[in-house]
Every structure is written in structure tokens, then in C-alpha cells.
């Protein structure tokens, strides 16, 4: 199953252009922390400090639920600041692209499984860790 999914992901990878600003998901690389998200949206930051504005419905997605769980384990629950997830912008863009393309439930499950089996070792969150970014994509 995972192999099937990886194959599919590989095909998709060639086609997907990661949206820097699309209708549903916005990636905002400049630091505009005081900006409130548009109606119906929430804000996430990745470990490399990129800002994502995402539709509220994404909170019901199993992949995001798993990412939130990992964030809690890794950073504890956020108090004063915004929510930060323990992955980098590239992998987040990938997850967003997957959700936008409405991936099949079994692929979603496989992705959640690959997340839970630890594709984010905690040593890889350094923003300058470019090789790891590529590794993350490959591991998809």
C-alpha cells in the first residue's frame, strides 16, 4: 500500500507546483505576525518560521491532526505565540498540495502512518538544514 502511494506521490511530484499564493492556502514568508488571517482561516508557522494561512476545514484533516499531535509532543502546547509545527515549509507545502488535490483516504492514511513512524527526527528542524528538506520530500 505504502509503495503504491509512494509511486503515486512520485508521479504527482513532477506535476505539482507548490503554490506560494493560491486561493485557499497562502504562504507568507515575510514576518507579518500582527496580521489577522482572513475570515474562515487560521495561521500556522513551520519550524523554519514560514507563515501559512489555511482554511479552517484543514483542522479536520487527519494529516493536520497528526501534525498537531507531533507539535504538542515536540514543543508542548503553545501559550503566547502562534502555533508552530515541527516540519519545514517545503513539507508543509507538500501536505497542503496533497489536501488540495483531494487525495484518496487510503493515501491520507499512509501519509499519516509515515508521519507517525517518525519521518521528522527532532534533530532536523534547523532552518538551514537543506539536505533534510529534500530527504523529507523523498520520504514521501
Amino acid at each position, binding site marked *: 500500500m505504502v509503495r503504491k502511494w509512494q509511486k503515486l506521490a512520485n508521479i504527482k511530484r513532477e506535476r505539482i507546483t507548490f503554490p506560494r499564493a493560491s486561493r485557499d492556502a497562502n504562504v507568507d514568508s515575510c514576518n507579518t505576525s500582527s496580521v*489577522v488571517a482572513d475570515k474562515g482561516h487560521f*495561521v500556522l508557522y513551520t519550524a523554519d518560521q514560514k507563515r501559512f494561512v489555511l482554511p*479552517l476545514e484543514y483542522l479536520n484533516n487527519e494529516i493536520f491532526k497528526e501534525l498537531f499531535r507531533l507539535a*504538542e509532543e*515536540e514543543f508542548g502546547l503553545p501559550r503566547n505565540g*502562534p502555533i508552530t509545527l515541527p516540519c519545514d515549509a517545503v513539507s508543509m507545502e507538500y501536505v497542503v498540495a496533497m489536501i488540495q488535490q483531494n487525495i484518496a483516504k487510503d493515501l491520507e492514511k499512509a501519509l499519516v502512518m509515515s508521519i507517525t513512524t517518525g519521518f521528522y527526527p527532532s534533530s532536523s528542524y534547523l532552518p538551514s538544514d537543506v539536505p533534510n528538506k529534500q530527504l523529507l520530500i523523498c520520504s514521501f
Partner: protein
Amino acid sequence: MFSELMNFLRACFRAKSDRHVHTGSNARGRQDGLLWYKDSGQHFNGEFSYGCGQANNLLEDQSQIESGSLSLNETGPYGTFIGVYDGHGGPETSRYVNNHLFQHLKRFTSEQHSMSVEVIRKAYQATEEGFLSQVTKQWPLKPQIAAVGSCCLVGVICGGTLYIANLGDSRAVLGRVMKATGEVLSIQLSAEHNVAIESVRQELHSLHPEDPQIVVLKHNVWRVKGLIQISRSIGDVYLKKAEFNREPLYAKFRLREPFKKPILSADPAISVHQLQPHDQFVIFASDGLWEHLSNQEAVDIVQNHPRSGSVRRLIKVALQEAAKKREMRYSDLKKIDRGVRRHFHDDITVIVVFLDSNLVSRASSVKCPSISVRGGGINLPHNTLAPYTTQMEVGST
């Protein structure tokens, strides 16, 4: 009588019309989405306002207000009891405290024929021991119960005296009118046992001089043994009794070195205050409120608005603040379901107890009907087909 009937009819009507959004109402309070509230009620020493904003999938904050006899006897003493129990790791400990602490307090008051610091201390101790025996019983089948605990903030108003007892990081704040200016000043009545505070870290270091790693800074947050932010609690027996710090408890809770003396304490800090005529109200709240509002902000909000609905207003302002921190709209924050909501804010429980000086100065032997209200919340598992729920508990007499 008529108003009760109206409330009943209203509740019936609402049950039909709003099934899908968990809205309900009864004499004990109303549930509106993840917010439960009772805008106003009467206790032995005045009015109260009560509410709870849920964030966790299973509400971990439990709470109660009890008014009437503080002993098992009809002879009293009479007064008001307030409890806010902010659980962590699950709802089991805070629920246990909600069901047992007040009963223990009544028993010890009966034995000693009066309210005292000693009575409160014994009630805490009996509750801690009772929960420990629950853990011992459940350990073979449910070992994770050893890693569940609760903060425990209690206020007792009896005979013009206010007792405040605390374990953990909930907080009680008094609003007192300044005669000269007419302004209301906030006076914090409890100290938090949270290792974010340097003196609490120092206390732990002096209690555990052999362990330089007793508190650890992890992702900018201080934690006892890298695990927990508070130094005193009910429960958390995995950090109190070494025999529960072993398999099959999850590895993340197990310490490398066995410990000889308890790491966390269940000994409450208790203070006694003689209430004065210009003491207006006391706000009891879990840290879910205080992480978004300062003492003075909270006191000003209560003072500058009608008493009824005070708590709903406090929770709203706290949620607006939480939304701002998460860079989103308050109206959108409210749409987020319990569970995931915990990443946006904590469970928030608030009880504002207004002090009517005529009633406060009344003798504690004056009888009054007893009232018992407990905070509500949604505690059904997701995907359970129960269209309408108001998790209300035990009634009054």
C-alpha cells in the same frame, strides 16, 4: 415557580431546535457550543457568576460551588465553598477531586465543629490519599492513570473569613474598592506552584539538592524533570511514588533514576483573609483565563459591567485575546472543535463570587438552603450519536 416553568419550556424548545449544535439549558446552566455558563446564582454570601470554556476533547477542568452547611450536620457552620480543579493528562483526577474533596471537608468540619486551616488541609490530604488508592486499584488494567493529575484551588467563605487553599497554577483574585478613589484594586490571594516562577524552582532545588536536573528548560518552558510545569498537585503519582514510575507506564513518563522521596507535593498553600466591607468579589479561575488576562484586567471587567454574565464576558475577552495571539478572528476560533481547540487555548473555568457585606457579616450559624452547582461541558466521545447533551451533575436540595 413561573420562571422555572418558563425555563423548562425554553429548555424543551431548545432541545428540539438546536440539536446539532449542543445547545441546551436548565436551571443549573446553559451549554452553547463549547461554552457552559450560569450567568448568575445566589450563594450564602451574595451572588455568583459561573462559566467554563472547553478546549480539550474531554473537559479536564472540573469545578463546583457549594453553598449551605459546610459540615455533615444541619447545625453548620454555613457558608460558601468554591473549587476549581484544572486536570492534566486526562480528566480522571479533577473529576475525582470534584466528587470527593468537599465531602471530606464536610466530614472534618463536623469532627472539629468549626471551619479551620486544619480542616482544609486534612480534606486535601484525604483526597490525595483517596486518589492514590484509586490508582493502586486501577494500575494493573490502566497504568496510565498514574500520570494523571490536577491542580486544586479552593475558597471557603465562613463567618466573615475567606480561606484560600491552592495546589498548582489556578488563581484567586480579590476585587477591593479603594475608599479614596472609588477604583477597584486587584489583590491576588493565591500563589501559583508553577516552575515558570523562579522562587518555585528554587524551592524544588532546595528540596532536592542531590538532583541538579530537578527542573529543566525545554523549548523555553521550565518543567519538573522535563515533564510537568507545576510542583504541587493532586495525583501525578508517577512523580510521587517510585513504585508507579515503571513499566507499563509510557516510557516518556519514566525517570531514568529511581527516586527516593516524592518529587511533587500535595501540601496546599493556605491563606486566611478577614473580609472587609469594601471587598467586592473574588475571581477563581484556572490558568486558561490567567494566561490571557492580567489580574487587574479581569477585575476591571467584572467591576465595570453588570454582575450577571460577568464570567461569560471574562471568557469572551480571554478567547478574543487567544485568537489575537494565534493571528485569527475570534468568530473563527469559536468554530474550532474540542480536541484541536486545545492548540488554540486551554480549558477556561471561572467562578466570580460577589460578596454582599450584609450577608458576609452574618453569623455562620444562620441556616440557608443548600445549593450545589458544578461546571458543565461536553464529555461524550466524538462520533457518538447523542444530538443533545448538557452534562449536568447532581442537583441541589
